[in-house]
């Protein structure tokens, strides 16, 4: 019995040692090799890369000829390292993997080792990096403490564990790959599960708690698998490689799997991994149309945004997104980790309030669209419209100015704060939150008619009626004002809410509390001056006078008491 056990032990030991050896890998290109690319007659294994005498470069006893190719280098807007031409051992790897040199072309043999015609090149394999390295993870860069400090998103190199190794302080191919051992696939030095390999160096803010790190969601087997080149089946397992790849990346910059950034998102956010179908929302007629731009968002772009664009990453940071729900004005987890502009116009590195994300583009940016409605006081800077010094505004940045709003539907009250996305969001009761896309103009969550002579119905002004109770506003008995003003104008004269009210707010720089309380700012396509006057004058709580001409009637003034 004992000798048998001993034999088994030795066989097992032999098997284990061989299975971790270069002999059983595709880097054994000898006639005994395992890959598609192998010699037809050469018996030595090491010889394709190493020689014991007259090597060049001398370390590590290199035996391959090189061509001195000039490579196209990786670059990105967020790259802090200085990239140069490949050097060190990377040059050695590229002497096969750039596809320009036959594998049998070595120094220690006078003539090229024969590979047979069908087995001497990579063809279109992923192993052929080509001489264009702009779509590959950067190599041959100094990775030291000062880089870690200036970048802020990579670890201190002294913290590298036994997996990833630097070569004379530089990242080289051999930092991630061990050409001699294929313990993990692709000769990697650590597992790619949960992106363990990447996280040796990369230290994205908030990644630990990010849903893309923790989600156990799986593909529902409909449509195209988001992980067709991966052996992992959950978001968490795929981690970085849900979106990124280290080689032959479709996008080049940022090393994304798909060429356009939204395709990376929609491969999961189409209802097939995440049950919420964001892609369907974006396809609606009014949307934040991320299809219209190609990698225009730069994670480190200057704010406010000056080159008009919208990408998923403008509002979402896929490295930090979470699923927690917050209360207005605090942003939800889905938007966590994005940059913003605060109510005073200052850039914030990590937005706290949701509106700060909107303000990146809808406030101080140039080349904004004109307002759909021409108003007496025109303002396209949304940040100014919601300034808390304004005479009136919807309560985005703080509670509103009106202490007695009749008809607010519980739990709304005068001190409530709402989101921009309370009104601007995908339509449909079961649609995912956020202003992705809507069938209504301006990405309204509900219908909001602004056309004059619209017959009043719940549907016509559903957006407003969601918070402002229709019955109270139109027929409310609390005071005459509701009947005199709202019923008369909205129901009888078919005047939309938007003719008198400017829902965002009126900047204190342009308006005042006498004329512009209660969001009064007239639609001048409907309302015109009378005797040179076009104004509302507040004379008290639910009391005021209008000086204007509207629907052929002249108010000069018309007082409501």
């Amino acid at each position, binding site marked *: 019995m004992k000798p048998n056990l001993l034999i088994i032990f030795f066989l097992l030991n032999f098997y284990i040692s061989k299975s971790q050896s270069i002999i059983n890998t595709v880097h054994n290109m000898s006639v005994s090799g395992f890959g598609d690319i192998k010699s037809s007659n050469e018996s*030595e*294994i090491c010889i394709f890369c190493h020689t*014991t*005498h*007259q090597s060049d470069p*001398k370390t590590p*006893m290199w035996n391959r000829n090189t061509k001195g190719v000039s490579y196209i280098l990786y670059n990105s807007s967020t790259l802090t390292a200085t990239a140069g031409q490949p050097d060190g051992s990377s040059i050695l790897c590229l002497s096969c993997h750039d596809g320009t040199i036959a594998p049998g072309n070595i120094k220690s043999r006078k003539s090229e080792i024969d590979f047979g015609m069908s087995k001497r090149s990579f063809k279109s394999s992923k192993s052929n990096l080509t001489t264009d390295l702009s779509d590959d993870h950067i190599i041959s860069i100094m990775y030291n403490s000062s880089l870690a400090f200036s970048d802020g998103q990579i670890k201190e190199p002294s913290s590298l564990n036994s997996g990833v190794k630097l070569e*004379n302080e530089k990242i080289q191919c051999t930092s991630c790959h061990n050409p001699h051992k294929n313990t993990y696939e692709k000769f990697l030095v650590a597992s790619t599960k949960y992106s363990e390999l990447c996280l040796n160096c990369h230290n994205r803010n908030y990644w630990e708690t990010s849903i893309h790190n923790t989600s156990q969601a799986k593909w529902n087997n409909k449509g195209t698998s988001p992980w067709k080149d991966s052996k992992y089946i959950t978001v968490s397992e795929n981690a970085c490689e849900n979106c990124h790849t280290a080689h032959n990346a479709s996008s080049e910059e940022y090393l994304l799997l798909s060429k356009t950034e939204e395709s990376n998102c929609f491969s999961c956010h189409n209802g097939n991994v995440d049950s919420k179908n964001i892609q369907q929302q974006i396809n609606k007629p009014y949307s934040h149309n991320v299809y219209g731009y190609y990698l225009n968002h730069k994670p480190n772009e200057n704010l406010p945004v000056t080159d008009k664009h919208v990408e998923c990453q403008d509002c979402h940071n896929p490295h930090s997104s979470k699923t927690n729900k917050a209360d207005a004005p605090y942003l939800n987890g889905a938007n966590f980790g994005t940059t913003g502009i605060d109510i005073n116009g200052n850039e914030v590195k990590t937005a706290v309030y949701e509106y700060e994300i909107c303000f990146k583009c809808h406030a101080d940016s140039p080349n904004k669209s004109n307002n759909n409605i021409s108003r007496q006081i025109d303002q396209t800077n949304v940040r100014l419209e919601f300034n808390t010094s304004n005479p009136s505004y919807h309560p985005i940045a703080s509670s509103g100015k009106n202490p007695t709003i009749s008809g607010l539907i519980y739990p709304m009250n005068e001190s409530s704060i709402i989101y921009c996305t309370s009104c601007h969001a995908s339509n449909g009761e079961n649609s995912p939150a956020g202003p992705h896309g809507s069938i209504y103009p301006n990405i309204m969550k509900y219908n909001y008619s602004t056309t004059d002579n619209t017959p009043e119905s719940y549907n016509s002004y559903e957006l407003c009626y969601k918070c402002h109770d229709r019955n109270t506003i139109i027929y409310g008995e609390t005071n005459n004002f509701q009947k005199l003003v709202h019923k008369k104008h909205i129901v009888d004269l078919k005047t939309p809410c938007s003719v008198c009210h400017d829902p965002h707010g009126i900047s204190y720089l342009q308006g005042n509390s006498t004329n512009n309380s209660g969001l009064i700012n007239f639609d001048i396509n409907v309302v015109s001056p009378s005797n040179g006057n076009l104004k509302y004058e507040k004379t008290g709580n639910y009391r005021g006078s209008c000086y204007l001409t509207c629907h052929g009637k002249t108010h000069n003034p018309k007082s409501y008491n």
Partner: protein
Amino acid sequence: MKKFTFTLTVILIFLFNQGFSQLATSAHDFTNGDAWNTNTSNKMCGVCHTPHNANTSVAEAPLWNHALSAVATYTLYGTGSATLDATINQPSSVSKLCLACHDGTVALDNGPLSNATMIGTVSASSNVGTDLSGDHPISFTYNDALATADGGLHPTTTTVSGMGGMINADMLFGAGNDQMECSSCHDVHNSANIAGLLLKTNTNSELCLTCHDK
């Protein structure tokens, strides 16, 4: 005397069968009429060995006859290597005997008993020169501790060499059987009859992979 002759004959036959049979016609067979080999009485062995008055300046030198290289400082392997864990020393021990011809600084016929005429140097392909930085390192301590530190080498005391014993006994030199030298890979007498005077076959890179755990 008869007994001595018999014993000598047995020893010679033994040696001939074991090794020298392969030396003939190998690259180290100097009997093939090379002009530089002026040794008249002992062309086969006399270039390197002498039975008397041998050069004993090199430890482990086996009845050495050839003049040694005067080079004291060779350029060593390892500059810039990020993976070398051994400390490479100037060539010592038996490697100095090899370099007596193969560094190209000493005439092949420069043996103290051979009336050197200072002609003949090794061919270019066999001339490693005095810059050894492009050659596999020699004259360094290779023991279990190095194997552990490096992670890419087999331990020497527990790994079979394929030649009967463990690496340390079969391939390493010095009092501690822990010195890697030229003769760790090469058998100058061509016992195994392998091109390049290798110690054992390098088919499937077996020689390399004896020590290298790759």
